[in-house]
């Protein structure tokens, strides 16, 4: 087994040098890590699992990578090896990203971006790499299903000063701070920053990006409208009215948007989370604030 | 001061703060 292990590792090295990632991964995955004959320490097993996962991820094979990351997850909890732990985290984030679990991926990318140590063992962490992780976090959050959870993560990212230096910041600002409907030029500009799997076609004939943008725009529309017809909603979102109704109904069902659908009148009513009297309170508070601002302004001008 | 006057006008235009039917029902 010892000799087989050495041969496999050497062959894998060769495949890697030829950039045949999946072949290298398959070569290494033939090593019996659970052999009863030889005792392999956990650190070795973890490093192999993570290495194999990283190789599969080079070819965007999330399914195969996930199998090894799952094995690694049993070993990483007791690992003291900081570099391996970081590599594990990065792999896990990428797998979630490839599997389109965008919100979870975003949280993990964000966690990685917040590493304070720029030197871990012999490895130096490039600041660019941390910036990339942050940018990936923002991208994944924007692509995640629209709703309260996504809004919370977006708000956290928006408040992070480092995000203001990212190329993707203007769209983050429009999405978060302004909660605005995104138009085609903005969506096209964002699309250029995406990886292929983030623009993949889904069974309903929308791409991942399309669906994320439609849901975002639908939620933005719910802030602007008390109610809207399916036809107008479709025109606003750039999709057929029936699809607009279907997406809206799914979002309401999943509690990601408040509202109700009147199929007879073909209209969707957006409900505000707050009752009318509470809204009245909020309006009065706004009015008093405006009044205060005027009084402060008058005082500052010596009136 | 034109700026102040514009702000006052904007403030006055906020009154009444809500005028919807739904609000009237709840208010009653």
């Amino acid at each position, binding site marked *: 087994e010892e000799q087989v292990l050495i041969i496999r590792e050497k062959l894998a090295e060769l495949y890697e040098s030829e950039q045949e990632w999946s072949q290298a991964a398959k070569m290494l995955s033939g090593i019996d890590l659970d052999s009863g004959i030889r005792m392999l320490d956990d650190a070795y097993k973890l490093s192999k699992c993570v290495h194999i996962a990283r190789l599969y991820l080079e070819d965007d094979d999330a399914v195969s990578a996930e199998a090894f990351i799952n094995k690694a997850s049993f070993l990483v909890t007791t690992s003291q090896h900081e570099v391996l732990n970081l590599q594990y985290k990065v792999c896990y984030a990428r797998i979630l990203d490839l599997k389109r679990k965008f919100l979870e991926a975003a949280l993990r990318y964000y966690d990685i971006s917040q590493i304070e140590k720029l030197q871990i063992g012999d490895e130096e962490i490039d600041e660019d790499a941390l910036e990339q992780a942050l940018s990936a976090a923002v991208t994944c959050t924007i692509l995640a299903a629209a709703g309260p959870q996504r809004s919370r993560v977006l708000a956290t990212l928006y408040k992070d000063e480092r995000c203001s230096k990212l190329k993707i910041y203007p769209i983050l600002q429009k999405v978060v701070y*302004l909660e*605005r*409907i995104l138009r085609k030029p903005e969506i096209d500009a964002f699309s250029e920053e995406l990886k292929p799997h983030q623009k993949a076609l889904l069974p309903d004939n929308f791409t991942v990006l399309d669906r994320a943008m439609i849901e975002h725009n639908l939620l933005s529309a719910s802030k*602007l*409208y*008390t*109610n*809207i*017809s399916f036809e*107008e909603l479709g*025109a*606003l979102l750039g999709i057929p009215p029936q699809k607009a109704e279907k997406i809206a109904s799914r979002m309401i069902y999943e509690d990601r948007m408040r509202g109700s659908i009147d199929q007879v*009148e073909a*209209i969707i*009513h957006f409900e505000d989370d707050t009752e009318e009297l509470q809204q009245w309170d909020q*309006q009065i508070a*706004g009015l008093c604030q*405006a009044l205060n*601002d*005027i009084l402060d*302004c008058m005082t500052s001008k010596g009136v | 001061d*034109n*700026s102040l*006057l*514009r*702000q*006052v*006008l*904007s*403030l*006055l*235009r*906020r*009154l*009444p703060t809500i*005028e*919807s039917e739904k609000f009237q029902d709840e208010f009653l």
Partner: protein
Amino acid sequence: MEMEKRQADLIEQFTQQAEATSDPRALASIISDATCHPSLFAFSEILSVPNISKLDGTQVSSSLDLLHLFAYGTWNDYKSSAGHLPSLLPNQAKKLKQLSVLTLAETNKVLPYDKLMEELDVSNVRELEDFLINECMYSGIVRGKLDQLRRCFEVQFAAGRDIRPEQLNSMIQALSSWLTTSDHMLQSIQEKIKWADTMSEASRKHKKEVEDRVEEVKKTL
């Protein structure tokens, strides 16, 4: 307030430019720049610059009229005097329509779509709503909700336009009326508090009387 803060620098910039020159053509150009600027919706400060008011009767007096229009007028006012005014650039036309929405919002909180479409020369609901969303709500000059069922725009907030002197009286009246109503409200609340205190005191007294009577009866028994 936000609106005014954003505009303050621009107003300062344009008024300084206008104060620095008395050349009519240069002033006409400043007026054009000001009326084109996407973030400026107030013009009375520029109007009150002496060099600007001296444009009256000059070969560029139509620019002065245009500035008046932007300060106080609407798109409909422009259409009825288009012959005497310079033709508008697209940005100016858009600005004037935005200002028209503010004027409409001065008198009504609920603006019917039909009225808006008529005032803004818009032929369909989609175009109207796109204008209200992109040019009005997203530029921060109004806040509100669009209601397609009732075909109206409910205004929650609208930025203030330049004020004509004759508007001051109605503003003072509105403020006085608000103040009077508030005073009456406070008085009413005071009376209710007093009434509640009196009732509470009476209730406490009555309770004590009853307890004292019960004790008396117990002793007798």
